């Protein structure tokens, strides 16, 4: 988020010194399945809980496979699966190429796997230079059905409510698509979640597109070197402003007010 974003800037700085191995590249992932369905969500979130003018949007992607699913930011997915040919890093004099090709422009480097390994929801994230992960059991959401219904596009959806991570969530799901999955960690409703938001509207996930192309999209998982952590530790650290930032002696002091205040993690509390 804000933090991983800052961290990236630091890597960009470092990479000029040693074209480093901190690249999240295709070779860092292994294929664990194939997706039959690609669902795109638009996530709008408010990084500063006191400033409702600043809303950031990003396209997120749910890849539903036979057994497991992967939820990842769209840009991140494009970079880890490699678009076109295998990336070739060329030492041209246009240094930008080396620099620009290595970084993933996403607020979210995390990936969420449902039912991988079986019976688990696995959360992975990347901070330079490593992947971290923790897991939670599947089907731990307790959903309350309401009788509110409406149409979203061609689908009829019903509202259900759950509590998670210190927020109350309202989900709209459609039994017409019998895939019990959704954005972020949300799952376990008898149909795809087309829209889910917390009651304060700080995080709004809304379906944008369902695509069923012939092309199978790979579901990939970081290879080796994953550091195990736990949910509480991980998300507590995520909130600290200096996460992952190593103080380098020549870092100049800012002369501008911080424009992106990030104080509004999706996960506020851990029960």
């Amino acid at each position, binding site marked *: 988020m804000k933090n991983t*974003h800052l961290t*990236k800037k630091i890597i960009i700085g470092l990479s000029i010194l040693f074209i480093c*191995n901190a690249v999240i590249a295709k*070779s*860092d992932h292994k294929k664990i399945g194939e997706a039959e369905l690609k669902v795109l969500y638009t996530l709008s979130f408010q990084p500063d809980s006191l400033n409702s003018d600043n809303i*950031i*949007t*990003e396209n997120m992607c749910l890849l539903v496979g036979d057994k497991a699913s992967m939820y990842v930011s769209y*840009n991140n997915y*494009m*970079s880890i699966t490699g*678009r076109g*040919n295998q*990336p*070739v890093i*060329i*030492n041209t*004099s*246009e*240094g*930008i*190429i080396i620099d*620009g*090709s290595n*970084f993933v*422009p*996403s*607020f979210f480097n995390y990936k969420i796997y449902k039912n991988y390994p079986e019976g688990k929801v696995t959360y992975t994230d990347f901070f*330079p230079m*490593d992947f971290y992960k923790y897991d939670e059991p599947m089907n731990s959401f307790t959903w309350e059905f309401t009788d509110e219904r409406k149409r979203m*596009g*061609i689908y009829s959806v*019903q509202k259900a*409510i759950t*509590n998670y991570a210190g927020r*109350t969530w309202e989900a709209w799901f459609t039994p017409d698509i*019998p895939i019990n999955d959704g954005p972020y960690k949300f799952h376990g409703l*008898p*149909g795809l979640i*087309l829209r889910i938001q917390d009651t304060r509207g700080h995080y709004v996930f809304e*379906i*944008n*597109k*369902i695509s*069923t192309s012939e092309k199978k999209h790979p579901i990939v998982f970081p290879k080796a*070197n994953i550091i195990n952590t736990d949910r509480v530790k*991980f998300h507590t*650290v995520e909130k*600290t*402003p*200096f996460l992952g930032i*190593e*103080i380098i002696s020549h870092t100049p*002091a*800012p*002369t*501008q*007010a911080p*424009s992106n*205040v990030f104080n509004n993690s999706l996960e506020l509390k851990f029960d």
Partner: protein
Amino acid sequence: MRPNIFLAFALILLFQCSLLSQSVITGKVLDENAKALPNINILVYPHNRDAMIAFGVSSNDGAFSIRMTHSADSLKIIASSMHYRNDTIYIANKSQEITLALEPEVKELKEFVLKASPIIQRGDTISYLVSSFAGEADRSIADVLERMPGIQIESSGRILYQGDPIQHLYVEGLDLMGGRYGLVSNNLPHQSVSTVEVLENHQPIRILEDMVPSYRASLNIRLKNNVATTGTADIGSGLTPFLWDANITPMMFTRKFQVAGSYQANNSGNDVSRQLNVLSMENVRDATAISALSNDMLSIPNLSPPDFNQRRYLENNIHLANANSLTRLSNDLQLRTNLYYIYDVQQQEGLSKRTIYTPTDTLEFAESIYNNFNHHYLQGEFTLNRNTKDNYLNNRLNFKTNWDKHNGSLMQDNDMLNQNLHNPFYSASNRLVMIKPIKNRLVEFTTYLLYDQNPQTLVVSPGVFENLFNPESEISEIHQDVNLQRMQANQSISFSTRWKNWTISPRLGFQYKQNNLNSRTHFFENGIRQEAGNFLNQAISLEQLDDDVLNNTSSLFKNTYEGYNTRTYVQAELNYKTNHLSLTANAPVSHVYYSIEDKALNKGQSVNSFVVDPRFTIDYKISAFWRTRGTYSFNNLFGELEEVHYAYILKNYRILHLNDAPLSRNERHNFSAFLSYRNPIESFFSSINYNYSVTNNTMLFNTVINDDGTSMVAAVEVPNTSYAHNVFAQTSKFFSPIRSTIAIQAHYSRFERMQLVNDFSVYSINNIYSLNPRLSIRFTQWLNAEYRASFMYYDTYHAENKINDMSVIKNFLDFLIFPARNQFISIKGEYYMHEDKHNYFVDLHYRYTIRSRRIDLEARWINILNNSSYQDFYVGAYSLVENYYVLRPTQFILSVKFSF
């Protein structure tokens, strides 16, 4: 909804439960062959209603069990899944067991798009219609950009798309300002823009589009009309004395031609010419390709400027004019022109004390210095660029010229010495880069050509080194003329290829360099011009002077040499990479040829050699947090052509330099080891780096120091070895309860080398110790503070004897305050302690932004304590220099920045 409401809701439900009937529906899901089906959704609806009330999912044995509470008489049960046809049955609302049999059917999900976006996306390009996002108060395109989804603007003007900085801001596909696009986005009126295109995953070099993925976006602004004009101005004034600071930047954009200019002038210590030194990545490479030689063979000794805010000491009067234009030509060609003109007058005043430790004596000299530098500079750069799918071409032609005139006055023991230096410089260079695909591989060609000429004249009056010139009466002036002409041509070709875990990137290149040096020294005696040379031989005792040279002493001050050097090299870097291990080996093989000849002196030399400069790096990831790296390299370092000159040159009033020796050739072994521990989850980072190098040198410079502080330097062929050790360690940790980061760096260096002073050899050892703690605190969102300190200790040994030592302490305390989103205050305090001398500085900076009108008001109060001088120390192998630099008086500047 708050939890307590939930609780109430739950209680009501619980209460109602007793009134409602609870039923459990169990059962099995089977396929047409009565085989159990897992993962089938069993949905329960009240009969005749569409809101689901409960559901279950069949387990691996096809069984399900749904417990629910509802008042309906009968229920509708639907079995639903992706691969079977839905089955609907109606049952009574009571506990019972049912069996559902499903027929296979693959559900075709339709491509589904929820709503047509007001934003149009075609492939990787997204277009925003500017008029539909513009608000009433918006003025510039930046104001409107901020409202577009996915786009954010930082207060510095930097544009982010999806949280990451954009690469380029194009106007009609042309990138006029490069990285300084803020000038365009903050000033271009939005009324002149029709659409903004976001080019996602934009690869700026089109030929690389399908080869090298890019994950960053660029923006392209499409104009509504043919012409858009705008600009910005920044005008400030202050005291004391009367100060000004102005910057006016007008701009014009059309679809085929764009231009931006600027005029900047100030006398407030702001060296705006530094804009020219900002190196982009591509320039760094050029700079390293060209020898690091400074163009100035002759100089006026100056006081090294203090290492802090320039506005405290720089006495300047600068005018800078700059014009940039970009034109779209036919055939996908773009021509960019950048012109700079600078006129700057700088003054420098201070006192310098030198202590020189010779093997026999310790000499001390003090001089007061007053220098006046006159810079006059013109630079033009013309870049032709072709960027198509199958061809990338970039040609940059650069002209530089300056007419610098410097003069300096020195006061030494009541004796006045004047120096005048005239060093015009003319240079032309051309750099061409082409990338072409050859058999699915990209091949890069690079050609670089350079010619420069640097005729310099140094006049020193009264004469120095008088006993050398053997005058009949006092010498009133000495003139040193040097004319250096250089030509250089570099060619290279390279490509990359990859096979499994291996990558190989060969490069083949040829470099040619030619130098012509002409120099002569003459002096004026009673107003009569004399060639230098008729001096008494015994005045200097340098054995390496040949007899025939001594017989023809005038040639001792006359260089006419021609030298050239070629280097042909092949280099291939080999990389092996796995998850934990990365190995890199690189062994460029070069053929090196040098030829130097001074026909007048009948001297010359040549070098002809094959050399290999291998380098190995191993990088190993021990565990998640630990990582280590080791490097070994061996380098053959040849001297530069400019180093050798067979006759004397008066480099400055106190150094007479001669290099009548074979070209230096040093061999360096370098070892380095690195270990790091990085734990981002704990915000704890530590690393240690050790570097050791051994250099076998062929040459030494003998410095003969005279009693008046002047010295003669001559190269001598004495094989010797020097050693350097470097240890650098750092650690940092963030403490979340106190919102602070504490970091400590420690550094130790040791240099051991042979020196020749007054014909004696001295083995000198320099040690440098430093410790730098740093603490940064984010008290609140609007108040940040940072404290840094630096403790340094130097000492120098000649063999076993300590000849000097020194300690320096520096302290910095900065407060950054953001009282409101449109205000910024910075207070900087600095404290320096050199030995027993103390210096304190305080600066204040305040900025107020009128956001609606895009006006910045700024106040700077620099050197509030009104320090008049600053003292600094420099340690050499056998000298210690103590400088007193006269500072600017306290100054206060108010400025306003606005756009038009």
